[in-house]
């Protein structure tokens, strides 16, 4: 560990230890004189702030654990006892509760920084991946931590999220029962969640150690995204960045303290102050705010995904990758070589969409015969042939045998149910972060020199915010709607409202309602989320012309100062 050519310390005790185990030499090398780019802005504070939040959470968490009881009969009351009877317990709990939110705030800003300034690019890919792993561990820890107070949101949040795993084909139920240790979220679930909630922060700590280790091999990125060329481009970490980090941390702590002391429950949900009741589901289950964008993605997939859609997507992806990896520059995508894949794919998309999105048409009697009329005829025609409905002989229609046959065909035709699709989309949205270094092939790191990338990263950030809003709202919330067709029927619909079910259906045939509801909002921005990673970033990586990079960090920094001085 570099002890061979270390410098001697003046303090004899320090020197005695350091000569046997050079911990002070390492600390000085990594946190004292460590050469750090001189041009950091305040975005570079959030790694240190996140580290501070992790320590805060571990310290308050251990003390809370001393007062907490992991038992469904006692958990809620033990938390209330912490709030009312334990000396300073309210403060520790509010620090811990809001600490989770502020840990996520710090980490989300840290991640934005990483994307905006291209910190994930070579040679920092592993550093970035370790960061995504920390993020995943944080999500798991925060989720199981929210279960421990055993309020209504604890129980039902846990029920909804653990039920996600039941979407896994074949072994889903086995996985869920193994997670629960029973047939519902109950005492065995609570006790194991407590054990894991105690363990995971230390796992996070270990991965943070690896994250920092990798950082100290490659060195920090910086707002210009160019590597330091020599000592004139860097500053020793201490005192320059220890001071800057401390200043940023204090500002962050002011905001944190404001929430702890003046709005401790603002970021939580009031339903979690109702003890858990397995017989009553809260009217509107929402996760904590930091999960909302992912929750919106989960809920956005309301349709099952059949082979037509999968094969269509596969063909498009194949053509796109083939075109992207082709050496010939600037060749049009709209040529025969690629269209032989894309056009059939479009055809498959239409078939798949008809089957997946359009509900079975209402049957109408024409001349006493059951028939479909107008466009419904075409749609049901497509459905008849392309869902292989024609395989079912007419002689057995209407019997249970025909139904069983239909179910068997559907099982083969539709590999991904809506529920599984939602789960895949949610986990996929995070998995994309892991492969981000390979999706973005552009050699320039910082968005400062990539005008298009900059716009799209900002749009992406806004769209994640909108997804968060969509995740917080009921799925069927209608933002805008209009009624086309028969005016009288529209009027009746508007006054009929929701309650009257039967009338509602009979009137609907004469009218068409066009509306924008929350699910559609979430679907649109989920689409953009995936398009950002899978289409926009690869395209920009290949075609975006970057602005000229400065020669070096110190030239960029000093040049600016000179201009300001003139």
């Amino acid at each position, binding site marked *: 560990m570099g002890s061979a050519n270390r410098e001697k310390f003046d303090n004899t005790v320090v020197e005695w230890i350091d000569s046997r185990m050079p911990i002070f030499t390492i600390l000085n090398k990594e946190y004292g004189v460590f050469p750090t780019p001189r041009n950091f802005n305040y975005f570079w504070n959030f790694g240190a702030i996140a580290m501070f939040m992790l320590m805060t959470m571990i310290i308050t968490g251990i003390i809370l654990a001393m007062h907490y009881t992991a038992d469904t009969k006692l958990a809620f009351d033990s938390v209330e006892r912490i709030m009312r009877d334990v000396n300073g317990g309210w403060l520790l709990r509010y620090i811990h509760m809001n600490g989770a939110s502020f840990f996520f705030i710090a980490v989300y800003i840290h991640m934005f920084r990483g994307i905006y300034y291209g910190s994930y690019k070579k040679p920092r890919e592993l550093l970035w991946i370790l960061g995504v792993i920390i993020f995943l561990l944080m999500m798991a820890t925060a989720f199981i931590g929210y279960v421990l107070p055993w309020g209504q949101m604890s129980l*039902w949040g846990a029920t*909804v999220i653990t039920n996600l795993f039941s979407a896994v084909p074949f072994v889903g139920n086995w996985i869920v*029962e193994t997670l*629960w*240790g029973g*047939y519902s979220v109950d005492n065995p679930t609570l006790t194991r969640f407590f054990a894991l909630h105690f363990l995971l922060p230390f796992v996070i700590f270990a991965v943070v150690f690896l994250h920092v280790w990798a950082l100290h091999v490659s060195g920090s990125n910086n707002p210009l995204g160019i590597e330091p060329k020599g000592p004139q481009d860097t500053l020793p970490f201490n005192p320059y960045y220890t001071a800057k980090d401390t200043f940023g941390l204090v500002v962050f702590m002011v905001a944190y303290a404001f929430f702890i002391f003046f709005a401790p429950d603002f970021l939580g949900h009031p339903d979690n102050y109702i003890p858990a009741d397995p017989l009553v*589901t809260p009217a509107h289950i929402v996760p904590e705010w930091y999960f909302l964008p992912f929750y919106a993605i989960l809920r956005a997939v309301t349709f099952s995904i059949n082979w037509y859609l999968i094969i269509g997507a596969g063909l498009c992806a194949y053509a796109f990758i083939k075109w992207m990896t082709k050496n010939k520059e600037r060749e049009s995508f709209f040529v025969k070589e690629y269209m032989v894949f894309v056009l059939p794919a479009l055809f498959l998309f239409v078939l798949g969409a008809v089957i997946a999105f359009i509900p*079975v048409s209402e049957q109408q009697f024409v001349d006493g015969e059951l028939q479909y009329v107008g466009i419904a005829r075409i749609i049901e025609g497509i459905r008849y042939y392309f869902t292989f409905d024609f395989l079912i002989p007419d002689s057995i229609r209407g019997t*249970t045998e025909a*139904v069983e046959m239909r179910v068997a065909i559907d099982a083969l035709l539709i590999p991904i149910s809506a529920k599984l699709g939602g789960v895949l989309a949610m986990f996929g949205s995070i998995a994309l972060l892991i492969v981000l270094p390979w999706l973005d092939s552009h050699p320039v790191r910082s968005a400062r020199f990539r005008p298009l990338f900059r716009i799209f990263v900002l749009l992406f950030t806004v769209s994640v915010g909108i997804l968060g809003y969509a995740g917080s709202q009921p799925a069927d919330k209608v933002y805008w709607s209009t009624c086309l067709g028969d005016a009288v029927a529209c009027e009746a619909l508007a006054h009929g409202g929701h309650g009257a079910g039967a009338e509602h259906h009979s009137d609907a045939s004469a009218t068409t309602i066009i509306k924008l509801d929350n699910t559609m909002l979430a679907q649109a921005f989920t689409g953009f989320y995936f398009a950002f990673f899978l289409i926009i970033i690869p395209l920009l990586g290949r075609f975006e012309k970057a602005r000229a990079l400065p020669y070096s960090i110190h030239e960029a920094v000093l040049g600016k100062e000179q201009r300001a001085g003139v």
Partner: protein
Amino acid sequence: MSAEIQTGNDNTHACCECDCGTRRDFMQLAAAAFGAVGLGFFVKPVIDSLRPAKDTQALATVEVDIGSVPEGESMTVMWRGKPVFIRHRTRKEIEMAQAVDVQSLTDKQSDEERVKKGKEQWLVTVGVCTHLGCIPQGQKPTDNRGGYDGWFCSCHGSEYDTSGRIRKGPAPKNLDVPPYEFVNDTTIKIG
């Protein structure tokens, strides 16, 4: 590294001319395989310990007196930590459930498959939405029962009909029918 090469040479002479590996390779593979089997024997009980314990499994049967439920009303009982909905259906509700074209359903089940023959007025289902496990509303006549007069799950908007079948919304399956039998006309045993 060098040690491996030395012994490797010795063993190639002793055993065979082929490049099928040395005695040391075999020992290493055998040891690793033995260790993997041992690990398997350890992992099995560890995972088993996370599965439902015997006392949890023991709560798997309940007997319910349903004689007190008047026509058109429902009761809820707990079974395996989950609510079970028992609805005493009206003639109209039964007819609505039977009139549905099974082909048009997401989870294709006829009403006959979901009730006991001769006891069509009793519908017994697990009261857990098959989407993500919320408890649907509709047990009280004043609840929002959705557009099909069954149950409405307010979490993500799934609507169930008077046979507990999914008709609208994201849930993939009908409400589960738990295993149950009639002990006599007014008592059922669930589980």
